[in-house]
């Protein structure tokens, strides 16, 4: 921690440049990592964080510049080389074989064998158990990792890295899928690793974590290293400023919106959770949404945000109980097609997996829900279909080479706009947006906010969930807070603050309601 800057750095990147076709992912990045420090690397999506880490871990091998380890240049040809040199990585998307046990995963690729050359499961399991206990991970080493919680899976990865005698551990946004308790445990584990002398490169864009953990902070922007700062000599505001390249101005939305009549109301909605101790994923949720209003739904991961939207769209895993009313009339939704007909649209959380038809063109993606309206004598009429697609592209200003371009040629933000466009063609009354700005860059985010505002002014009722509180505070007229499947608070846009929302979101069940 107090390692002097005059000592030879443990890792040194010197003028590293990596070009992909058409993009410079890393431009002349030079970075020193001192022995024993926790060095945080932050930057927006696409800033080059992951590329930098892939260079360090031997995933990317064709880069310009040098990688110097303990004063001597190295060139990793594959990840095994990096592992052998003591560099390990915990990927954001964990790299485990779900069907195999925790012990088997820890020793994957270098299994212990007995004198007959057969797998020595007992030795591996006892070694794994020792490692896991050290990490406060109370699982059985024989348990298949697919059955484990994400937080425990991550610790299995860390155990794997430890068993490799890793000296430099890269952690890529390790808290993105963890509960508060798991985050705290992870931080204790990180403390213990540092006590054991492990150098940690911590990739994150969460300021509170970075300022809690890091000794030094490196900011990347557009593939360039902006600055490396001592944590003591900076503050979150400065780092954010460096990340974005400008102060984040709250996207200013002109005059306040005028909500109209109640378009959607939910009365004591509950969603069962068979086989789980909590029994209910959602319990007694009541809410009202007005036309021309954006209603935010806040909550930690697992609070039931997505499940609530799924109930309203008729695609929940179990059948919900309670009433859903559209324009005062009760609707029963058993399939998304019924929700669509009733005038409800859902933009799913996972665009790639649940929203995009990646083998189709922009046009085919846009017209998917309204193809039935284009037919003449049972056949799709190209002219009408093109008309729908062109209208959407113009209305939402989707940047595309044309309506026949493959959908994969669009940027994330434009894909998101395109899927909103798909739903707007169905002329919905209620638009449900499940974390619509996830994986979308800052500029596109602002554009999506303006689009939501515009749609709202045209009389659409919008329910928005987000994992980012500032986003909800920026765009919502009202914010509901969910905690473990219950509604714990409701704030108007003016009175809501991040602190108030977090407080309500971390309420356990049974705690009194505030409003």
């Amino acid at each position, binding site marked *: 921690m107090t390692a002097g800057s005059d000592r030879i750095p443990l890792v040194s990147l010197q003028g590293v440049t990596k070009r992909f076709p058409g993009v410079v992912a890393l431009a002349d990045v030079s970075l020193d990592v001192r022995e024993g420090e926790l060095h945080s690397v932050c930057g927006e999506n696409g800033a080059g964080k992951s590329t930098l880490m892939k260079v360090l871990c031997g995933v990317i091998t064709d880069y310009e510049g040098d990688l110097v380890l303990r004063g001597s240049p190295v060139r990793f040809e594959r990840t095994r080389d990096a592992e052998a040199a003591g560099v390990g990585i915990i990927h954001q998307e964990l790299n485990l074989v779900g069907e195999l046990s925790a012990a088997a995963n820890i020793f994957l690729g270098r299994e212990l064998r007995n004198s007959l050359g057969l797998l020595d499961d007992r030795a591996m399991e006892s070694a794994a158990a020792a490692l896991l206990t050290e990490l406060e991970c109370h699982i059985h080493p024989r348990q298949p990792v697919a059955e484990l919680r994400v937080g425990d899976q991550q610790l299995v990865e860390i155990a794997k890295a430890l068993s490799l005698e890793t000296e430099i551990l890269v952690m890529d946004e390790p808290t993105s899928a963890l509960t508060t308790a798991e985050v705290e445990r992870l931080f204790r584990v990180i403390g213990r690793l540092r006590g054991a002398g492990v150098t940690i490169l911590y990739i994150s864009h969460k300021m509170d974590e970075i300022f809690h953990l890091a000794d030094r902070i490196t900011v990347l922007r557009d593939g360039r290293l902006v600055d490396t700062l001592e944590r003591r000599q900076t503050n979150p505001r400065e780092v954010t400023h460096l990340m974005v390249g400008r102060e984040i101005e709250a996207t200013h939305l002109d005059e306040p919106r005028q909500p109209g009549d109640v378009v959607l109301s939910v009365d004591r909605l509950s969603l069962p959770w068979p086989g789980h101790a909590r029994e209910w994923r959602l319990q007694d949720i009541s809410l009202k949404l007005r036309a021309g209003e954006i209603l935010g739904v806040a909550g930690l991961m697992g609070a039931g945000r997505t499940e609530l939207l799924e109930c309203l769209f008729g695609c929940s895993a179990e059948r919900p109980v309670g009433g859903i009313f559209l324009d005062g009339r009760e609707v029963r939704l058993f*399939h*998304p*097609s019924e929700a669509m007909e009733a005038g409800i649209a859902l933009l799913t959380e996972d665009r790639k997996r649940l929203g995009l*038809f990646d083998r189709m063109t922009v046009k085919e993606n846009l017209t*998917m829900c309204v193809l039935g309206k284009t*037919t003449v004598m049972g056949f799709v009429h190209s002219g009408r279909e093109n008309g729908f697609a062109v209208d959407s592209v113009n209305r939402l200003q989707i940047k595309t080479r044309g309506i026949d371009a493959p959908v994969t040629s669009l940027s994330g933000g434009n894909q998101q706009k395109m899927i909103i466009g798909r739903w707007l063609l169905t002329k919905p009354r209620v638009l449900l947006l499940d974390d619509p700005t996830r994986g979308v860059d800052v500029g596109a985010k602002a554009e999506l906010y303006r689009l939501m505002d515009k749609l709202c002014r045209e009389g659409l009722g919008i329910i928005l969930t987000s994992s980012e509180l500032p986003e909800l505070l920026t765009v919502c007229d009202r914010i509901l807070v969910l905690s473990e499947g219950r509604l714990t608070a409701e704030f108007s846009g003016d009175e809501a603050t991040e602190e108030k929302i977090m407080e309500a979101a971390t309420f356990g069940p049974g705690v009194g309601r505030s409003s």
Partner: protein
Amino acid sequence: MSLFGRSPLTANEMGLLGAIVLVLVLTTLLDGNHNYWNEPWLSAEDIARQTALLGIFSLGAAVVIIAGGIDLSSGSMIAFSGTICATIMVLLAPDAMQNAEPLGLPIIVLAIVGTLVVGFLVGSLHAWLITVVGLPPFIATLASLVGLRSLGRVVCENVTEVQFGGKSSQIQIYDEQFRYLATSVWIPVVVFVVLTVCVWLLLGRTVVGRHIYALGGNEDAARLSGIRTGRAKWLAYCIGTMTATIAGILFIGDQSVADPQTLGRGYELNAIAAAVVGGCSLQGGIGTAPGTALGALFLRVVIDGVAKIIKTGADVYEGLIVGLVVVVAVAFSKFRERR
């Protein structure tokens, strides 16, 4: 813009067309007996008939593959439907069937319609097993692959015992009118061409066709876009079995016997091969009817060419050729994708 919205043939299909011409030229040049040169019409008729018989049920396999599934049952479905068709004729006119007398058109029509209904029912069974029971398509249609052939034999033996007084594992078909279905070149070819155009229109120009592509490309996204994926699957699997049913009817006419044990054995893989060579992706969401038709034509042309050049029965090398063609065609398209 062409009649069908996009360019009628993809690059892959143009390549396939070129390859077909190349194989035909090579066969003409290398064949010592110069069959193609001396008897062009006879050779063309033969290839056309064989292609039609393969292509008809390859179209069904392609639709199922495009919908993101797989149908392993078509070979057994051919055997089963052929047996059912012959069985219906035996039940309706036992004496005529036994004494090789003409059956008359009404009985033939009834037999064909009845067989198509059976094909529809088997397709519905597949769809039910997959969408309601939740079996993987591989398992549901594997059960049919094994089961239908055996069931065909059970039906055949019981019906022959009752109607003819002696168990038989096959039923002879003498009726000239019925056999004309397959012995004439033009009926199978016309059926094939009409089916190709129908499937082309269905997939390319109708809402449910687009839904089938969407289902194969991303089933979750399709459901969440309000598409009734169960219905689209039902249609796809019914097309799969009903094309095999049509092929089964033509095959028993061609062979003048319905033998559930040998008819169409292993043909399900030929159909999948034709679809894949024709550009369908086994991951679903990609493929066309003309591509599949060309895939079937290419397979038959290569099989026929090798038989002509080596001068043995086509069936000796058939499996080997199909295997090689699939590997080469798919490797080639992967190679082109990567560039």
